[in-house]
């Protein structure tokens, strides 16, 4: 038997922290409701704030299978839901002919049965295994086109798929559905209406520090408080793409790999590529701007230390 779904918001928070996911109480509340009410959870937010991660952590912590559907433009039923196994169907037809069976009607019900179905992620997600219903992650839904979004409506509201040749396949137990979007376009209201919505913001300094500590346990304390303060300042700057939490973690990792114990101008300039991904942004920050930010960060961190110590 798999881990039971949490009974309170506190349980949800501790469940997530088991997977080293530091969540806001607001997110935990929404997630808890989604689990309890068996509704899909629709997560929006800037890239790299941990939307996808939550599904992975959830699957791991609840010990459920994770079924992931990565969306892209032109995603269609045959790669997202099901496809017929044509070669097997053809062999079956040839065999039937060789055996002298010629009743076409029988043959067609035979060949278009579940046995010849190749299940793709959405159909797989309707199957409950011994661990219970899986976690279905529909990642970056904004990348698909509108027709596919419309197709999802049936699955998300009734947890069922209609296959013309067979009929309706319904989930015995509804899967836990997490949908993410980076807002490269707006998702239609009809789909959002079926979900619980949550906007994930950039974390506060305090929470970001907790995240770094949870994900990179070995990091020097001074370095982590400096780099978090630096990233927090960077998010106030006028940049094309602000760094997300994923970038913070990458950067922290990069700095530890280089055996940095405290931030300095050179270390920042050399590793800025882990944090900023557009040349314009890098050119703007590198050098004097970074030094200025670092100066502010250092005084801020030492003030904090003076206050606490």
């Amino acid at each position, binding site marked *: 038997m798999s881990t039971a779904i949490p009974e309170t*918001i506190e349980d949800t928070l501790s469940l997530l922290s088991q997977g080293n996911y530091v969540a806001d*109480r*607001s997110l935990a*509340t*929404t997630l*808890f*409701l*989604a689990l*309890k*009410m068996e*509704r899909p959870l*629709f997560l*929006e937010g800037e890239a790299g704030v941990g939307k996808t991660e939550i599904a992975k952590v959830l699957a791991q912590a609840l010990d459920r299978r994770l079924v992931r559907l990565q969306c*892209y*433009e*032109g*995603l*269609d039923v*045959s790669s997202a839901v099901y496809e*017929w196994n*044509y070669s097997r*169907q*053809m062999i079956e*037809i040839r065999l039937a002919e060789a055996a002298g069976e010629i009743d*076409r009607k029988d*043959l*067609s019900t035979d*060949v*278009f049965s579940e046995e010849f179905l190749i299940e793709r992620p959405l159909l797989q997600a309707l199957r409950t295994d011994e661990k219970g219903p899986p976690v279905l992650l529909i990642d970056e839904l*904004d*990348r698909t*086109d*509108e*027709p596919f979004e419309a197709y999802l409506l049936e699955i998300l509201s009734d947890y069922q798929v209609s296959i013309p040749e067979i009929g309706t396949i319904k989930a015995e137990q509804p899967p836990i559905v997490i949908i993410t979007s*980076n*807002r*490269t*376009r*707006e998702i239609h*209201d009809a789909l*959002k*209406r079926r*979900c*619980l*919505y*949550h*906007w994930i913001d950039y974390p506060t300094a305090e929470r970001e520090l907790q995240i770094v500590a949870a994900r990179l346990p070995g990091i020097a304390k001074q370095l982590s408080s400096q780099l978090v303060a630096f990233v927090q300042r960077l998010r106030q700057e*006028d*940049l*094309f793409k602000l760094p997300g939490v994923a970038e913070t973690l990458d950067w922290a990792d990069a700095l530890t790999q280089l055996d940095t114990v405290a931030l300095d101008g050179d270390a920042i300039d050399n590793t800025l590529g882990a944090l900023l991904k557009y040349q*314009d942004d890098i050119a703007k920050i590198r050098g004097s701007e970074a030094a200025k930010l670092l100066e502010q960060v250092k005084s801020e961190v030492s003030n904090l230390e003076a206050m606490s110590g």
Partner: protein
Amino acid sequence: MPATAVIDTEGRMAENILYFARLVRGAGIPVGPGKVLDAITAVKTLGVGQRQDFYWCMFALFVNREDQRALFDQAFHIFWRNPRMMERMMSAMLPTIKVDREEELEEMTRRLADATGSSNLAASSPQDDEEIEFDASFTYSSKEVLQDMDFEDMSVEELNQAKLAIARLRLPIMKVPTRRFQSSLQGSQVDMRASLRASLRSSDSIELKFKKVQQRHPPLLILCDISGSMSRYSRMFLHFMHGITNDRDRIQAFVFGTRLTNITRHLRHRDVDVALDSVAESVDDWSGGTRIGACLKEFNNRWSRRVLGQGAITLIISDGLDRDNADDLAQQMDRLSKSTRRLIWLNPLLRYEKFEPKAKGIKAMLPYVDDFRSSHNLNSLMALSEVLSREQPRHRYSSLQDIA
């Protein structure tokens, strides 16, 4: 009726949620009855405990777009501070609402104020709440804006003719292949599913069916300048934008002068007059200065990733006369041209024969556009169809000679 049953058992809580939903709906967030039932279920699931948890519970159910957050937040705090206070407020007809927020949220508060005011009426006759719309809240600024618009150069008759012509205008944007298929006799790929199904109907051999790649228009983005120097044309262009918005899907429209405004949702009204009134109300920099660089920057940073997906084409309608000095403009144009399939610039100044791109802004923009077109009359707009309908290799202008 299940709804009443719920209300009976949960008493005041359910009723309060109902009123809260009505307030939120009145303020412009679409909350249907289904959502209200969900909210009641959710609160039962959650139990009435911490205020913060309750907040996020309501949030998850009632909000579904990021820009509704601030509005919801205010509505929540006003309503749930003390529902009794709501009643008092409704009886006092709203002047007492006091919310400490930044200036930019003021408009929303006014919207909310309207909603609270009208929910008093709605309580006595529930059918009325359909009529609550947030249009009413803009009355003050709209008058001023309408006075400021000076596109009356055309006679009424001329204007009407132009409108009709524009309403008929269709833009045959070239099609691009998608990754979807449709069945076709001339197709090059075998459609296995159709073939097998057909084979079971006929006898003997398997008859092959074919499919081909579907084609579709890419999305279109229009950025239209509404500054003073463009004012004689901007009304025409708004008609033009309205015409094509209603002709096809996936069009995003923005206007800019000193700041950028997204008018896509306003243009969706079928009726052109309603649509343009609604645009006029939402824009408050008509016929002012132009800050092309700053507006493009705002577009690049805030919108480009959201509206330029899936290989969009961009149409800039502007005379390129920038009030700011054009330092940042080239950089922003560069960024824009990198995020779009094709960048087309319509410039009404091009009708003057001796036009030369001397203005700093024009010089800065020109290297990054793929097409540079005149757009001062109906004919030039019609000619645009022809430009859009062919897929051209990207091509950059370095001097005016190239334009001819």
